[in-house]
């Protein structure tokens, strides 16, 4: 039978969306950190063979669903989420798609505004991913296979020619250079 403290710790980890540090658990339960350590040990044993697992991650302890349940969880919860792209997301995705690999500062320079939240949303939805770091240490991005699927493209060479939508087709310079120049002029 679990002790009261073990049950409380389980309830707290169950409720918390973030990993909880030992110190915070101790404070909430009004006990010492050593007592929390023992409760965590006992809980870890009791959760053996259950659908929920105890994990120690940076920042503390958390409960997570057992990985074996992922397929069922996907069927239950992962409603295909492909909401329409906002203008910021479409622009950011277009920059990554046509110029990849491309760094976050470059995206910001071309768009003329910080594009942090668009980049984050696109990464979360699995449309873009990090592909390393630039010479200057900035994270660089590329599109994912999921991106190609969701846009019905059999490869990146299938991206439509932007010349159709290009306001200055007589200009023969490289796309990247022209985008950066336009971006700079927008922010002046």
């Amino acid at each position, binding site marked *: 039978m679990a002790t009261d403290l073990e049950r409380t710790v389980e*309830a707290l980890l*169950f*409720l*918390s*969306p973030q990993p909880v540090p030992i110190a915070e658990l101790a404070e909430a339960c009004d006990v010492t950190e050593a007592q929390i350590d023992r409760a965590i040990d006992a809980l870890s044993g009791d959760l053996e063979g259950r659908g929920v697992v105890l994990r120690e991650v940076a920042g503390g302890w958390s409960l*997570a*669903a057992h990985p074996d349940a*992922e397929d069922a*969880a*996907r069927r239950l*919860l*992962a409603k*295909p*989420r*492909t909401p329409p*792209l906002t*203008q910021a997301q*479409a*622009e950011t*995705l*277009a*920059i990554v*798609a*046509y110029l990849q690999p491309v760094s976050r500062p470059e995206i910001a320079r*071309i*768009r003329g505004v910080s594009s942090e939240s668009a980049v984050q949303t696109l990464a*979360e*939805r*699995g449309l873009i991913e990090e592909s390393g770091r630039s010479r200057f240490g900035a994270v660089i991005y590329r599109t994912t*296979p*999921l991106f190609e*699927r*969701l*846009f*019905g*493209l059999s490869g990146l060479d*299938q*991206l*439509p*020619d*932007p010349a*159709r*939508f*290009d*306001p*200055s087709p007589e200009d023969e310079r490289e*796309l990247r250079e*022209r*985008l950066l*120049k*336009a*971006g700079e*002029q*927008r922010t002046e």
Partner: protein
Amino acid sequence: MRASELDLDLDVFAGPFDLLMTIVLREEVPLAEVELGEIVVAYLALVEERGELDLEAATEFLVLIASLLELKSRLLLPVAEADEPELAPEEAAEELLARMLEYRRYRGAAAHLAERFADGRRYLYRAAPLPPELRRVALEAARPAYEPDRLAAAIGDLLQIPPAPDTSHIRQTVSLDRRLRVLRDLLAGHGRIDFDQSFGSDDRLTQAVTLFALLEMHKRGEATWSQRETFGPIEITAANGAGHGN
């Protein structure tokens, strides 16, 4: 204008209309002694004072006052004058009783719900976002959902270099007074100036007004000017040699 905002000052009761309704239903004030006419007058006065009429609020007031009127009339009307049998006091009392019983039912249900709530809110539920892998479409299940042209169009938008700001709506004004001041300052400083050197880089309108200012100064005897040949340099000299204002 809500019925709840209506403050009453009646013989048997002083306070908000809401409270009156409550205590009538709870049998703390006999309905027979409440002046309903005064309530309506007070309500109408308040509506007039506010100058607004919220239909839903007015409906609510009408429902409340109408039910009170009906109940009270049944309680008060003597049996002898009643053509219609349902005006009998017994039935009026029955009607009021039914209303009170109905209210009591929901007051009891409310107590039950309050208890349930006190119990239920001790249970806390998890409210955490799904893990990232569940927040995106699985690759195998992914179907085309977006138009590639949207990306090309976005690139087209980004290639757009904004046109220089349109300044055509700004009307230039050149003031004669200001040109006079400029000329006087220059002459005071130098005693003698060359028109082209001083104003050659100004726009045509400024040059024209400056010339006009020069004519004015010439007329007043503040300055003289000379041009030795057509289109040649114009030399301006302060009339007293030292310039104006010194």
